[in-house]
């Protein structure tokens, strides 16, 4: 305590408004009390100390076990007991449909569900339903594969309602196996019951329509046979000779060679 505080200070100077001159009266305003004396510097409780020791032990063991060796490229805390490598659609019965549906699920969720919704019912007026759709359930998958490969534009009638929107092309996003799986999934989910689609079918259509850039229109697809066609024979009837020629010109030389070999076979 410094010396000057022993000198009585002028209370009026202490208060900048200077309204209260009597310090006792001033502080009376803030004095409201009831007696209750106590004091304490209790020692630590033994149980608390034990508890802390247990926590510290846990901390040490957790830190050693789940730190991934303090490596910058180890993102899983479980590297001591690594999870089995994820395999999409691994086992699940011998039935090819079940297998394909399983493998198609994540693909559907990723690529299709944003528009056609998780339950396959689409959005009224915007995105057509897949559940019970005549386009999906056609006897053969020729049209639906084409739609998935190159997308679809312009008006289309599904289950009696007309939709006019633009669907993406997925030829670069998914390979033949994946498209086969996702189409099989669509044809066998939301109450749909259709045949499985093989990667070979997709590959054939992909090759046959390799030159296509624009999305299909419903009218064009009407001209495509719903089923049938095999290796190389899937060329749609709607194509004119000129279109085929142009498509062949657009093909890279190597692809053209393979195509010709395939046709020769």
């Amino acid at each position, binding site marked *: 305590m410094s010396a000057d505080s022993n000198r009585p200070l002028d209370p009026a100077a202490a208060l900048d408004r200077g309204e209260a001159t009597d310090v006792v009266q001033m502080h*009376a305003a803030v004095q409201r009390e009831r007696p209750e004396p106590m004091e304490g510097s209790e020692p630590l409780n033994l149980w608390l100390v034990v508890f802390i020791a247990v926590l510290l032990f846990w901390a040490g063991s957790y830190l050693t076990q789940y730190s991934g060796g303090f490596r910058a490229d180890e993102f899983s805390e479980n590297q001591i007991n690594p999870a089995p490598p994820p395999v999409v659609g691994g086992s699940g019965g011998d039935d090819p449909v079940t297998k394909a549906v399983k493998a198609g699920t994540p693909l559907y969720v990723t690529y299709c569900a944003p528009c056609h919704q998780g339950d396959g019912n689409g959005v009224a007026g915007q995105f057509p339903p897949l559940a019970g759709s005549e386009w999906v359930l056609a006897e053969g998958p020729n049209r639906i594969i084409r739609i998935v490969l190159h997308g679809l534009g312009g008006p289309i009638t599904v289950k009696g309602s007309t939709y006019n929107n633009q669907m993406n092309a997925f030829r670069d996003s998914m390979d033949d196996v994946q498209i086969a799986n996702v189409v099989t999934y669509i044809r066998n989910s939301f109450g749909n019951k259709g045949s499985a689609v093989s990667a070979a079918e997709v590959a054939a259509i992909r090759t046959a329509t390799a030159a296509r850039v624009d999305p299909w229109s419903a009218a064009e697809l009407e001209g495509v046979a719903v089923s049938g066609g095999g290796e190389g024979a899937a060329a749609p009837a709607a194509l004119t000779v000129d279109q085929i020629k142009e498509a062949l010109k657009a093909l890279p030389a190597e692809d053209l060679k393979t195509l010709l070999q395939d046709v020769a076979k």
Partner: protein
Amino acid sequence: MSSTNTLKALMPGDVQSDPARRAMLAEIDASCRVPVLFFVVSGLMWLLLGTLLALVASIKLHNPEFLAAWEWLTFGRVRPAHLNTVIYGFASQTGIGVTLWLMCRLCRVPFPAPGLTTVAALFWNLGLTIGVVGILVGDSTAIEWLELPRYSTPILFFSYALVAVWSVITFRLRRERHLYVSQWYLLAALLWFPWLYATAQIMLLIEPVRGVVQASVNWWFAHNVLGLWFTPIGLGAIYYFIPKVVGRPIHSYYLSVLGFWSLALFYNWNGLHHLIGGPMPAWMITVSVVASVMMLIPVITVAINHHFTMVGHFGKLRHSPTLRFIVFGAMAYTLTSLQGVANSLRSYSEIVHFTHHTVAHAHLGVYGFFTMVMFGSLYYIVPRITQREWPSLALISVHFWGCALGLILYVVPLSYGGILQGLGMNDASIPFLKVVEGTLPWLRIRTGAGLLLALGHVAFVVNLGWLLCRVFGPYRKPVVELFTETGTAAVTAK
């Protein structure tokens, strides 16, 4: 009575009753009157604005069309504007005000730079106004807890530097050799905050580090604003006001020491538990998980210490507004910390991360703990620095019950709804929109709770405004007769 005398004997001679002593206390209170009131009043203005923004954001979450046509009122701008007004406008300013007063009282020195600090407060509000407007017009940095645009932060930092420097100088000038627990916490907060803030500014806004290191710095900072800025100020206030109001020293010094150092050691490692499951190397998250669990030590220690100080005095909650708010805050601190420990466990975080549960948890911490403690402190401090009593007891009750019930109604349903939301999200067979739909009732309850909180805030601001009107009016004595009957009467009778 004898034990009181024993205690008095332990106090230094100059603490004992003499006019100089009284005059000094009066001088201390008067010295920080202007800066503290300035910080507190402007803080409360920000609180009102923040409450309004919160209500808008809350309504938008269940009525997305609400005020959707204006770009500057879109959810993604109102929400950060709310966060920054309440954190840097209300909580920080009120916290600084309370810190200044506590520092001066405990150091036994009048505040050395009231004028300069008031100027600092002006600048703080200026910087914040620029920053919040910046967020609304689209200059938010989108870094959580640090959204204020770059051009506003130097002003804030300058202002903070002025405040902190003078608070630390006050600490250096102390006329009392002994340090009380609150002083440890307050000094720590004053020193920790600039380090945090400067580091985050430099590494995120001025010269951003690469890739996810930003996330690491971000959460180190954001969690520490809570842990190393608000928590120590709040705990410092609790450590001061519980003993002060019940008239009895804190239960155990050793628990205080243990609580302080374990908090200092563990809290600052907590931040990265916000990134569990995220793209960070496993060790960083594991370290934070461990540190979060270790927070049990300071939390339990402090809870024991406060509880045993209160034991036998809970009846006083009925009569003391300060004690009500402070004890509510202390309990909320324990609860929110335990909830925080649970949230940081990997298995639990898997469910509640990314959900509204986290939002409820944050409000239990910043509101239930810190804000309530600040309210309690203000009920004690304001009459002492203004020499006026609170004009309306009814408004105090409205304030307390509005805030307390509002907070419970906010936290409990939203925590529960958040868990349901998390369970739903983790079940891939439930479409995402169904999960969203499931959160709507809880979000509506939240808006209702927000209205209750707003009611409490308005009651408080009206009461304070009323009190301040009396300050600027002529001095009136009746306050004494109004509220004391044992106190003054007994003292003068002796």
